[in-house]
């Protein structure tokens, strides 16, 4: 039930947005997968990735994330499931020694954290977060330095909540410790100092509260108060879902601590992250996103005319930029024969409507440059536009894109779009 019970097979980068030194790196390890089950492991990892990407705001910062999958085979399949917690008594031999019933708690799925960190450090020294995916359909997981998850369909919610703690420094927003109906004592009223963490506070003053920039002037402060601190506040939210304010009851106390929204993924599994937590996640990822500040398109035309009224667009990074020089009476800057024109978008812009033709707004990451096709499109379709050369460059430099076949004639042999590679 140790590393002699399996082997490291290999490491794959399954979500690749660039150098690990420049990105936030999640490392996924598998435990309890025999060699013959590694295809299933890859499928399970992909399922988790899909779930993570579907969770706001991870979809909005996806370019900041690399995900590495380390394939680890174990001698046996599954995880220990002690009888003491009502389990089957199974004790499979696995590489990270995964077991349910950690600390005597049935659903607490734990692994050998030291081994997991060592394997991750050996393979991806730049890791930011480690997840061990355990080949069992029993519902379970855990947080801490290393997150664990079974393959139960709901277990990924556990992982994402735990990532909230480990990667973003978010604390629990639930207002109880052992449960509202547990009869717990010592959790009535918090009288301690302001929490360090960003998503819980004792401060209900709208002028000094730490998430005050997200609170509307019309939102009452506090937004809810618990009338009976010996128990959880039973009242429903008095404000629409998504309203940021101060809701009494947070981080294991019925009163005295406040959470930013009525509900949040840091309060319960299932709901989305609240706006405060989303902002923290965005801020954490911000250094891992590399903005494109400038796109430069240079086109040299040949001997054939194109109508100066035709509109031209540059497709780049999944968006289209209108190609028109500022203060130019012609819609098409490339309509003259045997001419070279350079259009600059973003920093040092020379195009019309520069604010809406700017790669900085909305934000564009360098990985967008290669994730989407690059093309020039003319509208309406013409039959006589001779392009000798066309190049696209960016700051910071990504790739230099050029038309594949010089002296291409738009509308003749290539349709209305010219692709650059």
């Amino acid at each position, binding site marked *: 039930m140790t590393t002699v019970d399996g082997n490291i097979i290999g490491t794959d980068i399954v979500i690749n947005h660039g150098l690990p030194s420049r990105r936030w790196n999640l490392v996924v390890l598998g435990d309890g997968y025999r060699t013959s089950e590694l295809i299933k492991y890859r499928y399970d990892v992909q399922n988790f990735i899909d779930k993570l990407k579907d969770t706001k705001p991870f979809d909005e910062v996806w370019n900041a994330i690399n995900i590495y999958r380390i394939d680890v085979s174990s001698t046996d399949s599954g995880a220990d499931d002690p009888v003491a917690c009502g389990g089957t008594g199974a004790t499979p031999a696995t590489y990270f020694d995964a077991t349910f019933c950690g600390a005597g708690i049935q659903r607490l799925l734990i692994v050998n954290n030291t081994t997991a960190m060592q394997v991750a450090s050996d393979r991806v020294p730049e890791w930011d977060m480690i997840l061990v995916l355990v080949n069992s359909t029993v519902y379970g997981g855990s947080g801490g330095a290393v997150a664990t998850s079974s393959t139960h369909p709901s277990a990924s919610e556990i992982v994402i909540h735990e990532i909230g703690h480990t990667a973003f420094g978010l604390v629990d927003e639930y207002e109880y410790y052992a449960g509202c109906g547990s009869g717990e004592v010592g959790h009535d009223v918090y009288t301690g100092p302001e929490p360090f963490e960003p998503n819980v506070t004792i401060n209900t003053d709208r002028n000094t509260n730490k998430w005050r920039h997200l609170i509307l002037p019309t939102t009452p402060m506090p937004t809810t108060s618990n009338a009976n601190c010996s128990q959880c506040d039973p009242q429903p939210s008095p404000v629409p879902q998504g309203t940021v304010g101060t809701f009494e009851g947070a981080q294991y106390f019925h009163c005295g601590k406040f959470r930013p929204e009525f509900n949040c993924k840091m309060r*319960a599994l299932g709901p989305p992250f609240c706006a405060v937590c989303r902002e923290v996640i965005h801020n954490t990822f911000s250094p891992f996103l590399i903005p494109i500040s400038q796109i430069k398109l240079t086109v040299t035309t040949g001997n054939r005319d194109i109508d100066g009224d035709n509109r031209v667009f540059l497709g780049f990074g999944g968006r289209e930029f209108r190609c028109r020089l500022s203060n130019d009476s012609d819609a098409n800057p490339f309509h003259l024969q045997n001419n070279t024109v350079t259009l600059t978008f973003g920093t040092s812009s020379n195009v019309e409507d520069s604010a809406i033709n700017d790669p900085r707004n909305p934000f564009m990451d360098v990985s967008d440059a290669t994730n989407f096709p690059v093309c020039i499109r003319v509208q309406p379709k013409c039959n006589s536009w001779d392009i000798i050369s066309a190049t696209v460059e960016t700051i910071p430099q990504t790739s230099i894109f050029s038309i594949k076949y010089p002296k291409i004639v738009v509308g003749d042999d290539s349709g209305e779009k010219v692709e650059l590679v």
Partner: protein
Amino acid sequence: MSLKDSNITKARRLTFQYKDTNIKLISQYTIDKVLPPTSPLIKSENKSGVWYEITDAQQNIIYNRGIPNAIQTDVEVFSNEPEEESIIRQNVPQIEGTFSILIPDIPEAKSLSIFSNPIKKGKKLLQKSATKIFEMNLNGDNIQ
């Protein structure tokens, strides 16, 4: 000086072992790595929670990050009920484990401190002001 907006590209990973309030550095290595931005550089007095901070030679805080579940005095337990109380907490019998942090590897960084609410042996974190539970000279000498 704040590192919030600077471009940190060198980092040091420190891995610790803890048992109750005894924290021991067990490994470290340096890497080329962008780091998350610092949390607000607030003074550590009269705050609750668990976090680490880096100070310069003048004891100014230049980087800090919350690590709320690094030292596990209790764990989260998950129910099958997704709507309400899908999570509760339960004490662990022994406060021990490992955790890892990334800190900026820059000349200005002179000291690392870890703060935590007081930990009563075998009990959960007390809801009082955090105190310094570990300090390390980043030139390599363990101070405390």
